[in-house]
């Protein structure tokens, strides 16, 4: 009994300590971000390419099929009420407000987040970060901040592309496959989708971008510097990011309703 109380105390203490360190780490990244953004924009652009451009294929393919499947579901349900023209609206709402940002963030964690964590973790394991320290170059500033910023910038762009391609997928299914009138399909979307709905999607993708990038660089920087440690850190990145994204999604949706 005494043992388990002590375990709970120690685990709680460790959790609070890690959470505090995580917040301080976030503040450090924020502190260095403006300097790196304005003085070393080349490093940021390279990371936008690594995290964003290299994730384009998976984002576009998934966006296309998610949009198509949404249109399939929407059409089969709407047609019961003779409301096939609303197929596009249903797909657009789901994509712009929810699935665009959420699925992009989860795919981003799987493709770019894992790459960031393993890259930083391996740099640590092979003494590259220590070597930078010894060359009087702050690795947080030089390595982590550009990667963090690259993810933060790339994520909303990827979410927008995901939603755009998703709408195209919905169009293919609704208009080309089920012969919904093309004018009605797009006009209903235009009339129903408000700027506030788009804003909600943008806010979510920005918050998810910060969360996914932050978790990826944190896990890489704090990985145990062994092959097993880097592997575990990479797995944790995907798991923690997925949970964080869904929790944040609920909180933001609740706050904006």
């Amino acid at each position, binding site marked *: 009994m005494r043992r388990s109380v002590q375990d709970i105390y120690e685990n709680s203490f460790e959790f609070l300590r890690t959470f505090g360190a995580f917040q301080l780490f976030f503040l450090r990244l924020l502190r260095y971000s403006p300097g790196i953004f304005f003085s070393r924009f080349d490093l940021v652009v390279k990371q936008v390419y690594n995290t964003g451009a290299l994730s384009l294929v998976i984002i576009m393919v998934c966006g296309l099929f998610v949009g198509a499947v949404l249109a399939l579901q929407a059409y089969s349900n709407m047609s019961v009420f003779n409301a096939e023209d609303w197929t596009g609206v249903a797909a657009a709402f789901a994509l712009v407000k929810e699935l665009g940002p959420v699925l992009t963030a989860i795919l981003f964690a799987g493709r770019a987040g894992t790459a960031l964590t393993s890259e930083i973790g391996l740099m640590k394991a092979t003494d590259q970060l220590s070597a930078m*320290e*010894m060359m009087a170059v702050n690795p947080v500033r030089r390595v982590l901040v550009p990667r963090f910023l690259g993810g933060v910038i790339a994520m909303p762009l990827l979410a927008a592309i995901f939603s755009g391609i998703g709408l195209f997928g919905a169009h293919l299914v609704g208009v080309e496959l089920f012969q919904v009138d093309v004018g009605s399909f797009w006009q209903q979307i235009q009339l129903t989708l408000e700027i506030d709905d788009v804003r909600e999607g943008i806010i979510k993708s920005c918050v998810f971008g910060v969360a996914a990038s932050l978790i990826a660089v944190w896990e890489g920087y704090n990985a145990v510097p062994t092959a097993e440690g880097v592997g575990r850190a990479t797995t944790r990145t995907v798991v923690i990011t997925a949970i964080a994204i869904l929790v944040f999604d609920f909180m933001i949706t609740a706050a904006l309703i």
Partner: protein
Amino acid sequence: MTDESDNLIEVRDLTFSRGHRKIFDHLNLTIKRGEVTALMGPSGTGKTTLLRLITRQLIPQQGAIYIEGIDIATLSQAKLYELRQRFGMLFQNGALLTDLSVFENVAFPLLEHTKLSRRLISHIVLTKLHAVGLRGAADMMPAELSGGMARRVALARAMVMDPDILIYDEPFVGLDPISLGVIVRLVRRMNDALGITSIVVSHDVEEIATVADRSFLIADGKVAASGSPDELRTANSELVRQFMHGMADGPVAFHYEAPDYEEQLLGRENE
């Protein structure tokens, strides 16, 4: 009589543990300015840890390390980075930045800390690469280099800022005999020609004897012996003799602490 100002690095009463294992127990040593100092000792005695403490990648749990009389544990990050610009360090595995080419790796400290023209940086980098015999590998990526080549590139990078203190962690491991000879001579020549101070961690008793002015043999968390390589070689201490002459029997056990061999084997069989 020695002049206090000759003492560049002073380690005083250093105590450092990892978990329950005490690595250093009130260790004291002094590194003189302008000398090549060797840190030697059996595997696992904490030589690399000592280098990390001297460069404040780690902080002593007790005791202090002074560089030019300043306790480095008290330095702010800005002051520490200022100090580190005077250091060059060759890591055991080279620690080259894998996303940069050989040329970019060597140019890295210059690009980060100076406003020199690209042309001048290119000249400096090629000069340093030429010194380690790898000018022709400037456009290669670290993944394309052998272990020995990577270490030589890392050496070029360590000396590119013309540091006051050059630290080598196992510089002779994995080098072919030709590279080894060149690097050994380079360590000595750079130290004398540029008037720098060198600290070399090595197991290689023969090679280190040809370059070091002073050696410290570290064992059991303390300095077991110190002096010139010749003095160490002729020392009476059993431990020093065992290490310098590579003898299997002596105070340093070859086998890590373990239960009785026979008992363990038979015990496992009976399980």
